[in-house]
Protein backbone atom coordinates (compact mmCIF):
# COMPACT_ATOMS: atom_id res chain seq x y z
CA UNK A 1 0.00 0.00 0.00
CA UNK A 2 1.22 3.49 -0.81
CA UNK A 3 0.38 6.12 1.77
CA UNK A 4 0.68 9.83 1.14
CA UNK A 5 0.77 11.08 4.69
CA UNK A 6 0.04 14.76 5.44
CA UNK A 7 2.19 15.96 2.53
CA UNK A 8 2.60 19.74 2.26
CA UNK A 9 4.59 21.94 -0.06
CA UNK A 10 4.91 25.73 -0.18
CA UNK A 11 6.38 27.49 -3.18
CA UNK A 12 7.19 31.20 -3.07
CA UNK A 13 5.45 31.53 0.31
CA UNK A 14 2.24 30.13 -1.22
CA UNK A 15 0.92 26.78 -0.05
CA UNK A 16 0.51 24.64 -3.19
CA UNK A 17 -0.49 21.43 -1.45
CA UNK A 18 -1.51 21.22 2.19
CA UNK A 19 -1.72 18.12 4.34
CA UNK A 20 -2.59 15.80 1.50
CA UNK A 21 -3.40 12.39 2.92
CA UNK A 22 -4.61 9.29 1.11
CA UNK A 23 -3.78 5.65 0.59
CA UNK A 24 -3.56 3.80 -2.68
CA UNK A 25 -3.61 0.05 -3.22
CA UNK A 26 -2.43 -2.07 -6.12
CA UNK A 27 -5.46 -2.94 -8.19
CA UNK A 28 -6.96 0.53 -7.85
CA UNK A 29 -7.30 3.14 -10.54
CA UNK A 30 -7.50 6.39 -8.66
CA UNK A 31 -8.41 9.61 -10.42
CA UNK A 32 -7.02 12.92 -9.24
CA UNK A 33 -9.08 15.87 -10.37
CA UNK A 34 -8.95 19.55 -9.76
CA UNK A 35 -8.74 22.78 -11.64
CA UNK A 36 -5.62 23.78 -13.49
CA UNK A 37 -3.01 25.01 -11.04
CA UNK A 38 -4.61 23.39 -8.02
CA UNK A 39 -1.44 21.40 -7.26
CA UNK A 40 -1.86 18.05 -8.99
CA UNK A 41 1.57 18.02 -10.60
CA UNK A 42 3.17 19.51 -7.49
CA UNK A 43 1.72 16.61 -5.52
CA UNK A 44 3.30 14.13 -7.95
CA UNK A 45 6.64 15.92 -7.88
CA UNK A 46 6.63 15.98 -4.09
CA UNK A 47 5.67 12.30 -4.01
CA UNK A 48 8.61 11.40 -6.25
CA UNK A 49 11.22 13.50 -4.41
CA UNK A 50 11.67 16.04 -7.20
CA UNK A 51 10.34 18.65 -4.82
CA UNK A 52 11.44 18.39 -1.23
CA UNK A 53 8.24 18.38 0.81
CA UNK A 54 7.92 20.85 3.70
CA UNK A 55 6.27 18.21 5.83
CA UNK A 56 4.67 14.81 5.61
CA UNK A 57 5.94 11.69 3.92
CA UNK A 58 5.19 9.03 1.37
CA UNK A 59 5.43 5.40 2.43
CA UNK A 60 5.23 2.20 0.42
CA UNK A 61 4.35 -0.81 2.56
CA UNK A 62 5.32 1.29 5.60
CA UNK A 63 8.76 2.14 4.17
CA UNK A 64 9.34 5.90 4.22
CA UNK A 65 10.67 6.89 0.80
CA UNK A 66 12.90 9.56 2.33
CA UNK A 67 14.55 7.11 4.67
CA UNK A 68 14.51 4.17 2.26
CA UNK A 69 14.56 5.71 -1.21
CA UNK A 70 15.11 2.35 -2.89
CA UNK A 71 11.37 1.72 -2.47
CA UNK A 72 10.77 4.63 -4.80
CA UNK A 73 11.49 2.19 -7.63
CA UNK A 74 8.00 0.84 -7.05
CA UNK A 75 6.60 4.25 -7.96
CA UNK A 76 6.69 5.44 -11.56
CA UNK A 77 6.15 9.01 -12.72
CA UNK A 78 7.16 10.84 -15.87
CA UNK A 79 6.98 14.59 -15.63
CA UNK A 80 5.31 15.56 -18.88
CA UNK A 81 6.58 19.13 -18.66
CA UNK A 82 10.16 18.52 -17.56
CA UNK A 83 11.79 15.28 -18.58
CA UNK A 84 15.20 14.39 -19.94
CA UNK A 85 14.04 12.36 -22.92
CA UNK A 86 14.00 15.13 -25.54
CA UNK A 87 17.47 14.48 -26.90
CA UNK A 88 17.15 10.71 -27.01
CA UNK A 89 15.72 8.29 -29.54
CA UNK A 90 12.96 5.95 -28.48
CA UNK A 91 15.28 2.94 -28.73
CA UNK A 92 17.61 4.56 -26.17
CA UNK A 93 15.02 5.21 -23.47
CA UNK A 94 14.90 1.64 -22.11
CA UNK A 95 18.66 1.88 -21.50
CA UNK A 96 17.86 4.43 -18.83
CA UNK A 97 14.61 3.06 -17.46
CA UNK A 98 15.83 -0.53 -17.25
CA UNK A 99 18.62 0.62 -14.93
CA UNK A 100 16.12 2.15 -12.52
CA UNK A 101 13.13 -0.16 -12.89
CA UNK A 102 14.72 -3.58 -12.70
CA UNK A 103 11.64 -5.36 -14.10
CA UNK A 104 11.47 -3.13 -17.14
CA UNK A 105 10.10 -5.15 -20.08
CA UNK A 106 12.10 -4.17 -23.18
CA UNK A 107 10.34 -6.61 -25.48
CA UNK A 108 6.94 -5.31 -24.58
CA UNK A 109 8.18 -1.75 -24.96
CA UNK A 110 9.25 -2.43 -28.52
CA UNK A 111 6.02 -4.30 -29.31
CA UNK A 112 3.87 -1.48 -27.98
CA UNK A 113 5.82 1.11 -29.96
CA UNK A 114 5.27 -0.97 -33.08
CA UNK A 115 1.61 -1.43 -32.23
CA UNK A 116 1.16 2.35 -32.19
CA UNK A 117 3.31 2.89 -35.30
CA UNK A 118 6.07 4.62 -33.39
CA UNK A 119 9.57 4.26 -34.80
CA UNK A 120 12.45 3.24 -32.53
CA UNK A 121 14.73 5.72 -34.26
CA UNK A 122 12.38 8.64 -33.70
CA UNK A 123 13.73 11.32 -31.43
CA UNK A 124 11.39 11.98 -28.50
CA UNK A 125 11.37 15.75 -28.95
CA UNK A 126 10.36 15.44 -32.59
CA UNK A 127 7.19 13.57 -31.71
CA UNK A 128 3.85 15.31 -31.54
CA UNK A 129 2.39 16.09 -28.12
CA UNK A 130 0.03 13.15 -28.39
CA UNK A 131 2.76 10.74 -29.46
CA UNK A 132 4.96 11.85 -26.55
CA UNK A 133 2.06 11.22 -24.19
CA UNK A 134 1.72 7.78 -25.72
CA UNK A 135 5.43 7.00 -25.24
CA UNK A 136 5.13 8.12 -21.62
CA UNK A 137 2.28 5.69 -21.03
CA UNK A 138 4.17 2.88 -22.78
CA UNK A 139 7.20 3.49 -20.56
CA UNK A 140 4.93 3.52 -17.53
CA UNK A 141 3.30 0.23 -18.45
CA UNK A 142 6.54 -1.52 -19.33
CA UNK A 143 8.36 -0.29 -16.21
CA UNK A 144 6.38 -2.87 -14.26
CA UNK A 145 6.39 -0.54 -11.26
CA UNK A 146 3.64 -1.27 -8.75
CA UNK A 147 2.36 2.29 -8.47
CA UNK A 148 2.09 4.25 -11.68
CA UNK A 149 1.33 7.96 -11.76
CA UNK A 150 0.03 9.33 -15.05
CA UNK A 151 -0.21 13.11 -15.29
CA UNK A 152 -2.84 14.14 -17.81
CA UNK A 153 -2.11 11.02 -19.89
CA UNK A 154 -4.85 11.61 -22.43
CA UNK A 155 -3.91 15.18 -23.20
CA UNK A 156 -3.47 15.52 -26.96
CA UNK A 157 -4.44 11.96 -27.80
CA UNK A 158 -7.04 11.11 -30.40
CA UNK A 159 -10.06 9.12 -29.33
CA UNK A 160 -8.81 5.77 -30.69
CA UNK A 161 -5.46 5.95 -28.90
CA UNK A 162 -7.23 7.19 -25.79
CA UNK A 163 -9.46 4.16 -25.77
CA UNK A 164 -6.49 1.88 -26.38
CA UNK A 165 -4.66 3.32 -23.42
CA UNK A 166 -7.70 3.14 -21.19
CA UNK A 167 -8.10 -0.53 -22.11
CA UNK A 168 -4.43 -1.22 -21.40
CA UNK A 169 -4.67 0.49 -18.01
CA UNK A 170 -7.73 -1.56 -17.09
CA UNK A 171 -5.98 -4.76 -18.22
CA UNK A 172 -2.92 -3.90 -16.14
CA UNK A 173 -4.83 -3.66 -12.88
CA UNK A 174 -6.77 -6.85 -13.49
CA UNK A 175 -4.27 -9.01 -11.62
CA UNK A 176 -4.23 -6.57 -8.69
CA UNK A 177 -0.44 -6.11 -8.83
CA UNK A 178 -0.43 -2.59 -10.18
CA UNK A 179 -2.24 0.58 -9.32
CA UNK A 180 -2.70 3.79 -11.24
CA UNK A 181 -3.08 7.36 -10.07
CA UNK A 182 -4.31 9.39 -13.01
CA UNK A 183 -4.67 13.14 -12.95
CA UNK A 184 -7.01 14.99 -15.20
CA UNK A 185 -8.84 18.27 -15.38
CA UNK A 186 -11.39 16.63 -17.67
CA UNK A 187 -13.77 14.39 -15.77
CA UNK A 188 -15.03 12.64 -18.89
CA UNK A 189 -11.58 11.11 -19.37
CA UNK A 190 -11.78 9.36 -16.03
CA UNK A 191 -15.36 8.21 -16.45
CA UNK A 192 -15.47 4.44 -16.63
CA UNK A 193 -11.80 4.20 -15.77
CA UNK A 194 -11.39 5.21 -12.15
CA UNK A 195 -12.77 3.34 -9.18
CA UNK A 196 -12.03 6.19 -6.93
CA UNK A 197 -11.59 9.91 -7.41
CA UNK A 198 -9.64 12.34 -5.29
CA UNK A 199 -10.67 15.95 -5.59
CA UNK A 200 -8.06 18.62 -4.99
CA UNK A 201 -9.45 22.00 -4.16
CA UNK A 202 -7.67 25.05 -2.78
CA UNK A 203 -4.47 23.08 -2.16
CA UNK A 204 -6.23 20.45 -0.10
CA UNK A 205 -7.73 17.05 -0.70
CA UNK A 206 -11.37 18.12 -0.55
CA UNK A 207 -12.99 14.72 -1.20
CA UNK A 208 -12.05 11.10 -1.61
CA UNK A 209 -14.92 9.49 -3.53
CA UNK A 210 -15.51 5.80 -3.96
CA UNK A 211 -17.48 5.95 -7.18
CA UNK A 212 -19.27 2.66 -6.69
CA UNK A 213 -20.66 3.85 -3.38
CA UNK A 214 -21.65 7.22 -4.77
CA UNK A 215 -23.32 5.70 -7.81
CA UNK A 216 -25.26 3.28 -5.61
CA UNK A 217 -27.09 6.14 -3.94
CA UNK A 218 -27.14 8.90 -6.54
CA UNK A 219 -29.51 9.28 -9.47
CA UNK A 220 -29.75 11.66 -12.40
CA UNK A 221 -33.26 12.51 -13.57
CA UNK A 222 -34.81 14.61 -16.31
CA UNK A 223 -38.08 16.21 -15.21
CA UNK A 224 -40.82 18.43 -16.54
CA UNK A 225 -43.51 19.73 -14.25
CA UNK A 226 -46.92 21.10 -15.19
CA UNK A 227 -46.23 24.57 -13.85
CA UNK A 228 -43.09 26.66 -13.67
CA UNK A 229 -42.70 26.42 -9.91
CA UNK A 230 -39.87 24.14 -8.84
CA UNK A 231 -41.17 21.87 -6.08
CA UNK A 232 -39.62 22.19 -2.66
CA UNK A 233 -38.68 18.51 -2.52
CA UNK A 234 -36.51 19.05 -5.55
CA UNK A 235 -34.81 22.13 -4.12
CA UNK A 236 -34.03 20.37 -0.88
CA UNK A 237 -32.80 17.04 -2.20
CA UNK A 238 -31.25 17.62 -5.59
CA UNK A 239 -28.71 19.69 -7.43
CA UNK A 240 -29.66 21.36 -10.66
CA UNK A 241 -27.39 20.32 -13.48
CA UNK A 242 -29.09 21.90 -16.47
CA UNK A 243 -32.25 23.82 -17.41
CA UNK A 244 -33.62 23.81 -20.93
CA UNK A 245 -36.99 25.53 -21.19
CA UNK A 246 -39.12 23.67 -18.69
CA UNK A 247 -36.91 20.61 -18.75
CA UNK A 248 -34.89 20.25 -15.57
CA UNK A 249 -31.94 17.88 -15.32
CA UNK A 250 -31.13 17.21 -11.69
CA UNK A 251 -28.98 14.89 -9.64
CA UNK A 252 -30.08 13.45 -6.35
CA UNK A 253 -26.99 12.55 -4.30
CA UNK A 254 -29.14 10.41 -1.95
CA UNK A 255 -32.01 8.94 -3.89
CA UNK A 256 -34.35 6.97 -1.65
CA UNK A 257 -37.66 5.16 -2.11
CA UNK A 258 -39.36 7.82 -0.05
CA UNK A 259 -37.99 10.54 -2.33
CA UNK A 260 -39.11 8.57 -5.36
CA UNK A 261 -42.64 8.39 -3.97
CA UNK A 262 -42.71 12.12 -3.23
CA UNK A 263 -41.56 12.98 -6.76
CA UNK A 264 -44.09 10.71 -8.43
CA UNK A 265 -46.82 12.18 -6.26
CA UNK A 266 -46.10 15.52 -7.95
CA UNK A 267 -47.18 13.87 -11.23
CA UNK A 268 -44.41 15.27 -13.44
CA UNK A 269 -45.14 15.45 -17.15
CA UNK A 270 -41.75 13.89 -17.82
CA UNK A 271 -39.79 11.71 -15.43
CA UNK A 272 -36.86 10.01 -17.04
CA UNK A 273 -33.73 8.54 -15.46
CA UNK A 274 -30.49 9.41 -17.27
CA UNK A 275 -27.08 7.79 -17.05
CA UNK A 276 -25.03 9.38 -14.35
CA UNK A 277 -21.58 10.63 -15.36
CA UNK A 278 -18.64 11.48 -13.19
CA UNK A 279 -19.10 15.09 -14.09
CA UNK A 280 -22.72 15.00 -12.89
CA UNK A 281 -21.60 13.57 -9.59
CA UNK A 282 -19.13 16.33 -9.01
CA UNK A 283 -21.54 19.02 -10.05
CA UNK A 284 -24.08 17.54 -7.70
CA UNK A 285 -21.63 17.45 -4.85
CA UNK A 286 -20.06 20.78 -5.53
CA UNK A 287 -22.72 22.74 -7.36
CA UNK A 288 -22.13 25.73 -5.11
CA UNK A 289 -18.60 25.67 -6.40
CA UNK A 290 -18.98 27.65 -9.60
CA UNK A 291 -15.25 27.44 -10.14
CA UNK A 292 -15.40 23.70 -10.31
CA UNK A 293 -18.09 23.83 -12.96
CA UNK A 294 -15.72 25.82 -15.11
CA UNK A 295 -13.27 23.00 -15.02
CA UNK A 296 -14.10 21.65 -18.44
Amino acid at each position, binding site marked *: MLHVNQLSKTIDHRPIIEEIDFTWQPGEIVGLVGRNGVGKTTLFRAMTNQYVADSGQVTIDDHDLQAEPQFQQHLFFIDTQY*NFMGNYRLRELPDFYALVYTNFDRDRYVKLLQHFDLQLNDQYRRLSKGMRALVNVILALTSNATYIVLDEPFDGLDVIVRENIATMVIDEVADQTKGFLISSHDLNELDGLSDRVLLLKESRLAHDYNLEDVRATAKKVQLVFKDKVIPEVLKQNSKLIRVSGRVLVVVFPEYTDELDAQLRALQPVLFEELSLTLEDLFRANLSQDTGYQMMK
Partner: protein
Amino acid sequence: MTKHLLALFWQRYRQRFWALLAISLVMGLILALLNVTTWNLSATDTLFGNQIHRWEPYLGSANATFSLYSYWLVFVFWLGGLFLMLLDRTENFNQFLFASGYRRSVIYWTKLGMSLVGLVAVAVITTLEQYLIYWLHVPHGVTLNLAWPGVLTSWALGLAMSLGMFALSWFAALIVGQTGPLMVTIGGFTISLIGVVNIIQGLLHHWTSAQRDWLAVGLWLAASLILWVWGAGLFGRLSLEHNGEYLLFPKLRLPLYLVFVVYMTALFTINGTDLVAGAWTFVLTSLFGYGWLWRPHWLEDWRQRHA
Protein backbone atom coordinates in the same frame (compact mmCIF):
# COMPACT_ATOMS: atom_id res chain seq x y z
CA MET B 1 22.63 -0.50 -6.90
CA THR B 2 25.72 1.69 -7.32
CA LYS B 3 26.77 -0.45 -10.27
CA HIS B 4 23.47 0.39 -11.95
CA LEU B 5 23.94 4.05 -11.12
CA LEU B 6 27.40 4.03 -12.67
CA ALA B 7 25.95 2.39 -15.76
CA LEU B 8 23.23 5.06 -15.80
CA PHE B 9 25.79 7.87 -15.62
CA TRP B 10 27.97 6.23 -18.26
CA GLN B 11 24.90 5.93 -20.50
CA ARG B 12 24.23 9.59 -19.91
CA TYR B 13 27.72 11.09 -20.14
CA ARG B 14 29.73 8.82 -22.42
CA GLN B 15 29.08 10.82 -25.58
CA ARG B 16 30.10 14.00 -23.77
CA PHE B 17 33.29 12.45 -22.50
CA TRP B 18 34.19 11.18 -25.97
CA ALA B 19 33.47 14.64 -27.39
CA LEU B 20 35.53 16.32 -24.68
CA LEU B 21 38.39 13.89 -25.25
CA ALA B 22 38.30 14.56 -28.99
CA ILE B 23 38.35 18.34 -28.48
CA SER B 24 41.06 18.03 -25.86
CA LEU B 25 43.22 15.89 -28.13
CA VAL B 26 42.89 18.39 -30.97
CA MET B 27 43.72 21.33 -28.70
CA GLY B 28 46.55 19.37 -27.06
CA LEU B 29 47.98 18.59 -30.48
CA ILE B 30 47.79 22.23 -31.60
CA LEU B 31 49.38 23.52 -28.38
CA ALA B 32 52.17 20.94 -28.49
CA LEU B 33 52.92 21.71 -32.14
CA LEU B 34 52.94 25.43 -31.37
CA ASN B 35 55.43 24.76 -28.58
CA VAL B 36 57.82 22.70 -30.65
CA THR B 37 57.98 25.37 -33.35
CA THR B 38 59.59 27.70 -30.78
CA TRP B 39 62.30 25.22 -29.82
CA ASN B 40 65.85 26.20 -30.56
CA LEU B 41 67.85 23.11 -29.65
CA SER B 42 71.22 21.96 -30.84
CA ALA B 43 72.66 18.47 -30.66
CA THR B 44 74.58 19.11 -27.45
CA ASP B 45 71.62 20.54 -25.51
CA THR B 46 69.39 18.83 -23.01
CA LEU B 47 65.66 19.07 -23.55
CA PHE B 48 64.92 20.16 -19.99
CA GLY B 49 66.67 22.84 -17.97
CA ASN B 50 68.03 22.27 -14.47
CA GLN B 51 64.65 23.19 -13.01
CA ILE B 52 63.43 19.71 -13.89
CA HIS B 53 65.45 18.36 -10.97
CA ARG B 54 63.80 20.66 -8.44
CA TRP B 55 60.48 20.11 -6.66
CA GLU B 56 58.71 22.92 -8.46
CA PRO B 57 56.55 23.09 -11.58
CA TYR B 58 58.63 22.94 -14.72
CA LEU B 59 58.22 26.13 -16.76
CA GLY B 60 60.49 25.31 -19.70
CA SER B 61 64.00 26.42 -20.57
CA ALA B 62 65.36 29.23 -22.71
CA ASN B 63 65.73 26.81 -25.63
CA ALA B 64 62.56 24.78 -25.29
CA THR B 65 59.40 26.23 -23.80
CA PHE B 66 56.63 23.90 -22.78
CA SER B 67 54.83 22.82 -19.66
CA LEU B 68 54.50 19.28 -18.46
CA TYR B 69 50.89 19.93 -17.48
CA SER B 70 49.07 22.16 -19.95
CA TYR B 71 46.86 25.02 -18.71
CA TRP B 72 44.43 23.84 -21.34
CA LEU B 73 43.67 20.89 -19.06
CA VAL B 74 42.77 23.26 -16.24
CA PHE B 75 40.20 24.76 -18.57
CA VAL B 76 38.95 21.26 -19.51
CA PHE B 77 38.29 20.53 -15.84
CA TRP B 78 36.59 23.91 -15.38
CA LEU B 79 34.40 23.25 -18.40
CA GLY B 80 33.69 19.68 -17.30
CA GLY B 81 32.55 20.73 -13.82
CA LEU B 82 30.32 23.40 -15.26
CA PHE B 83 28.57 21.31 -17.86
CA LEU B 84 28.29 18.05 -15.95
CA MET B 85 26.28 19.83 -13.29
CA LEU B 86 24.54 22.38 -15.51
CA LEU B 87 23.22 20.05 -18.20
CA ASP B 88 21.51 17.71 -15.77
CA ARG B 89 19.48 20.71 -14.65
CA THR B 90 18.78 22.24 -18.05
CA GLU B 91 17.98 18.88 -19.65
CA ASN B 92 15.85 17.79 -16.67
CA PHE B 93 17.93 14.72 -15.90
CA ASN B 94 17.82 15.68 -12.22
CA GLN B 95 14.09 14.92 -12.26
CA PHE B 96 14.84 11.39 -13.38
CA LEU B 97 17.68 10.95 -10.90
CA PHE B 98 15.71 12.23 -7.93
CA ALA B 99 12.77 9.97 -8.73
CA SER B 100 15.03 6.99 -9.41
CA GLY B 101 15.17 5.66 -5.88
CA TYR B 102 18.88 6.27 -5.41
CA ARG B 103 19.84 8.18 -2.31
CA ARG B 104 20.79 11.77 -3.15
CA SER B 105 24.19 11.44 -1.50
CA VAL B 106 24.92 8.30 -3.54
CA ILE B 107 23.89 10.10 -6.73
CA TYR B 108 26.10 13.07 -5.91
CA TRP B 109 29.27 11.21 -4.97
CA THR B 110 28.90 8.65 -7.76
CA LYS B 111 28.48 11.41 -10.30
CA LEU B 112 31.40 13.36 -8.84
CA GLY B 113 33.63 10.30 -8.80
CA MET B 114 32.78 9.35 -12.34
CA SER B 115 33.26 12.93 -13.55
CA LEU B 116 36.70 13.15 -11.96
CA VAL B 117 37.82 9.78 -13.27
CA GLY B 118 36.63 10.76 -16.75
CA LEU B 119 38.35 14.15 -16.66
CA VAL B 120 41.60 12.76 -15.24
CA ALA B 121 41.54 10.19 -18.05
CA VAL B 122 41.10 13.00 -20.59
CA ALA B 123 43.99 14.88 -18.97
CA VAL B 124 46.29 11.83 -18.97
CA ILE B 125 45.52 10.89 -22.57
CA THR B 126 45.94 14.47 -23.78
CA THR B 127 49.22 14.80 -21.91
CA LEU B 128 50.50 11.51 -23.31
CA GLU B 129 49.67 12.80 -26.76
CA GLN B 130 51.57 16.02 -26.06
CA TYR B 131 54.57 14.13 -24.66
CA LEU B 132 54.54 11.98 -27.78
CA ILE B 133 54.59 15.08 -30.00
CA TYR B 134 57.48 16.51 -27.97
CA TRP B 135 59.40 13.22 -28.16
CA LEU B 136 58.90 12.98 -31.91
CA HIS B 137 60.25 16.52 -32.32
CA VAL B 138 63.35 16.15 -30.16
CA PRO B 139 66.29 16.75 -32.50
CA HIS B 140 68.84 13.99 -32.91
CA GLY B 141 71.49 14.14 -30.21
CA VAL B 142 69.47 16.18 -27.69
CA THR B 143 69.40 14.50 -24.28
CA LEU B 144 66.02 13.69 -22.82
CA ASN B 145 66.83 14.46 -19.21
CA LEU B 146 63.35 14.03 -17.73
CA ALA B 147 63.33 13.83 -13.91
CA TRP B 148 60.60 12.94 -11.47
CA PRO B 149 60.73 16.05 -9.24
CA GLY B 150 59.75 18.41 -12.05
CA VAL B 151 57.18 16.02 -13.51
CA LEU B 152 55.48 15.23 -10.23
CA THR B 153 55.39 18.84 -9.05
CA SER B 154 54.03 20.04 -12.39
CA TRP B 155 51.35 17.40 -12.20
CA ALA B 156 50.60 18.03 -8.54
CA LEU B 157 50.08 21.75 -9.06
CA GLY B 158 48.34 21.35 -12.41
CA LEU B 159 46.00 18.67 -11.15
CA ALA B 160 45.30 20.50 -7.88
CA MET B 161 44.46 23.66 -9.83
CA SER B 162 42.31 21.62 -12.23
CA LEU B 163 40.42 20.01 -9.37
CA GLY B 164 39.95 23.44 -7.79
CA MET B 165 38.57 24.90 -11.02
CA PHE B 166 36.37 21.87 -11.46
CA ALA B 167 35.04 22.25 -7.91
CA LEU B 168 34.34 25.96 -8.43
CA SER B 169 32.37 25.58 -11.64
CA TRP B 170 30.65 22.40 -10.35
CA PHE B 171 29.54 24.22 -7.20
CA ALA B 172 28.46 27.34 -9.09
CA ALA B 173 26.37 25.25 -11.50
CA LEU B 174 24.81 23.52 -8.50
CA ILE B 175 23.59 26.71 -6.84
CA VAL B 176 22.81 28.97 -9.82
CA GLY B 177 19.67 28.10 -11.72
CA GLN B 178 19.96 30.39 -14.76
CA THR B 179 22.41 29.50 -17.50
CA GLY B 180 23.39 33.00 -18.72
CA PRO B 181 23.89 34.50 -15.25
CA LEU B 182 25.75 31.33 -14.23
CA MET B 183 28.26 31.87 -17.03
CA VAL B 184 28.68 35.52 -16.03
CA THR B 185 29.05 34.61 -12.35
CA ILE B 186 31.54 31.78 -12.70
CA GLY B 187 33.40 33.51 -15.55
CA GLY B 188 33.74 36.71 -13.52
CA PHE B 189 34.78 34.86 -10.39
CA THR B 190 37.35 32.76 -12.24
CA ILE B 191 38.91 35.85 -13.82
CA SER B 192 38.92 37.59 -10.44
CA LEU B 193 41.09 34.78 -9.09
CA ILE B 194 44.01 36.27 -11.03
CA GLY B 195 43.76 39.25 -8.67
CA VAL B 196 43.60 36.94 -5.67
CA VAL B 197 46.70 35.07 -6.83
CA ASN B 198 48.54 38.40 -7.23
CA ILE B 199 47.53 39.46 -3.75
CA ILE B 200 48.65 36.18 -2.20
CA GLN B 201 51.94 36.27 -4.07
CA GLY B 202 52.46 39.84 -2.88
CA LEU B 203 51.79 38.87 0.71
CA LEU B 204 54.13 35.86 0.49
CA HIS B 205 56.94 37.56 -1.42
CA HIS B 206 59.51 36.34 1.11
CA TRP B 207 58.56 32.70 0.46
CA THR B 208 60.41 30.69 -2.15
CA SER B 209 58.64 29.89 -5.40
CA ALA B 210 58.50 26.20 -4.47
CA GLN B 211 56.94 27.00 -1.08
CA ARG B 212 54.27 29.15 -2.73
CA ASP B 213 53.55 26.42 -5.27
CA TRP B 214 53.07 23.76 -2.63
CA LEU B 215 50.91 26.14 -0.63
CA ALA B 216 48.82 26.59 -3.78
CA VAL B 217 48.47 22.81 -4.11
CA GLY B 218 47.22 22.65 -0.53
CA LEU B 219 44.83 25.56 -0.95
CA TRP B 220 43.35 24.22 -4.18
CA LEU B 221 42.83 20.78 -2.68
CA ALA B 222 41.33 22.20 0.52
CA ALA B 223 39.00 24.47 -1.45
CA SER B 224 37.95 21.55 -3.66
CA LEU B 225 37.20 19.35 -0.69
CA ILE B 226 35.18 22.06 1.05
CA LEU B 227 33.15 22.80 -2.09
CA TRP B 228 32.47 19.12 -2.80
CA VAL B 229 31.35 18.38 0.74
CA TRP B 230 29.26 21.56 0.92
CA GLY B 231 27.83 20.72 -2.50
CA ALA B 232 26.85 17.25 -1.27
CA GLY B 233 24.88 18.81 1.58
CA LEU B 234 23.12 21.23 -0.78
CA PHE B 235 22.41 18.55 -3.37
CA GLY B 236 20.60 16.55 -0.72
CA ARG B 237 18.24 19.48 -0.15
CA LEU B 238 17.86 20.56 -3.77
CA SER B 239 14.19 21.06 -4.59
CA LEU B 240 13.50 21.50 -8.27
CA GLU B 241 10.77 24.13 -8.02
CA HIS B 242 13.58 26.71 -7.99
CA ASN B 243 14.80 25.70 -11.46
CA GLY B 244 15.07 28.83 -13.55
CA GLU B 245 15.66 31.13 -10.59
CA TYR B 246 19.08 32.73 -10.11
CA LEU B 247 19.64 30.90 -6.86
CA LEU B 248 18.43 27.32 -6.51
CA PHE B 249 18.81 27.72 -2.74
CA PRO B 250 17.07 30.94 -1.64
CA LYS B 251 18.66 30.72 1.81
CA LEU B 252 22.06 31.30 0.21
CA ARG B 253 21.00 34.76 -0.96
CA LEU B 254 22.22 36.72 2.06
CA PRO B 255 25.49 34.78 2.57
CA LEU B 256 26.26 35.07 -1.13
CA TYR B 257 25.56 38.82 -1.03
CA LEU B 258 27.89 39.34 1.92
CA VAL B 259 30.65 37.21 0.37
CA PHE B 260 30.29 39.05 -2.95
CA VAL B 261 30.52 42.53 -1.37
CA VAL B 262 33.36 41.65 1.00
CA TYR B 263 35.30 39.71 -1.67
CA MET B 264 35.08 42.43 -4.31
CA THR B 265 35.82 45.22 -1.84
CA ALA B 266 38.82 43.35 -0.46
CA LEU B 267 40.06 42.65 -3.95
CA PHE B 268 40.02 46.29 -4.98
CA THR B 269 41.16 47.65 -1.62
CA ILE B 270 44.23 45.45 -1.35
CA ASN B 271 45.19 45.90 -4.97
CA GLY B 272 44.48 49.64 -4.98
CA THR B 273 46.87 52.36 -3.92
CA ASP B 274 44.30 54.21 -1.81
CA LEU B 275 41.03 53.48 -0.06
CA VAL B 276 38.88 55.43 -2.51
CA ALA B 277 38.79 52.51 -4.96
CA GLY B 278 37.76 50.21 -2.14
CA ALA B 279 35.01 52.58 -0.99
CA TRP B 280 33.62 52.89 -4.50
CA THR B 281 33.76 49.13 -4.94
CA PHE B 282 31.90 48.64 -1.68
CA VAL B 283 29.09 51.03 -2.69
CA LEU B 284 28.76 49.70 -6.21
CA THR B 285 28.90 46.02 -5.28
CA SER B 286 26.42 46.59 -2.43
CA LEU B 287 23.93 48.17 -4.83
CA PHE B 288 24.58 45.78 -7.70
CA GLY B 289 24.46 42.72 -5.46
CA TYR B 290 21.17 43.85 -3.94
CA GLY B 291 19.59 44.45 -7.34
CA TRP B 292 20.96 41.21 -8.78
CA LEU B 293 20.04 38.89 -5.93
CA TRP B 294 16.77 40.36 -4.69
CA ARG B 295 15.41 41.79 -7.96
CA PRO B 296 13.28 44.38 -6.15
CA HIS B 297 9.95 45.29 -7.75
CA TRP B 298 10.86 48.94 -8.28
CA LEU B 299 13.95 47.91 -10.24
CA GLU B 300 11.95 45.44 -12.32
CA ASP B 301 9.28 48.10 -13.01
CA TRP B 302 11.97 50.60 -14.01
CA ARG B 303 13.62 48.04 -16.29
CA GLN B 304 10.33 47.19 -17.99
CA ARG B 305 9.47 50.88 -18.48
CA HIS B 306 12.82 51.45 -20.16
CA ALA B 307 12.90 48.19 -22.11
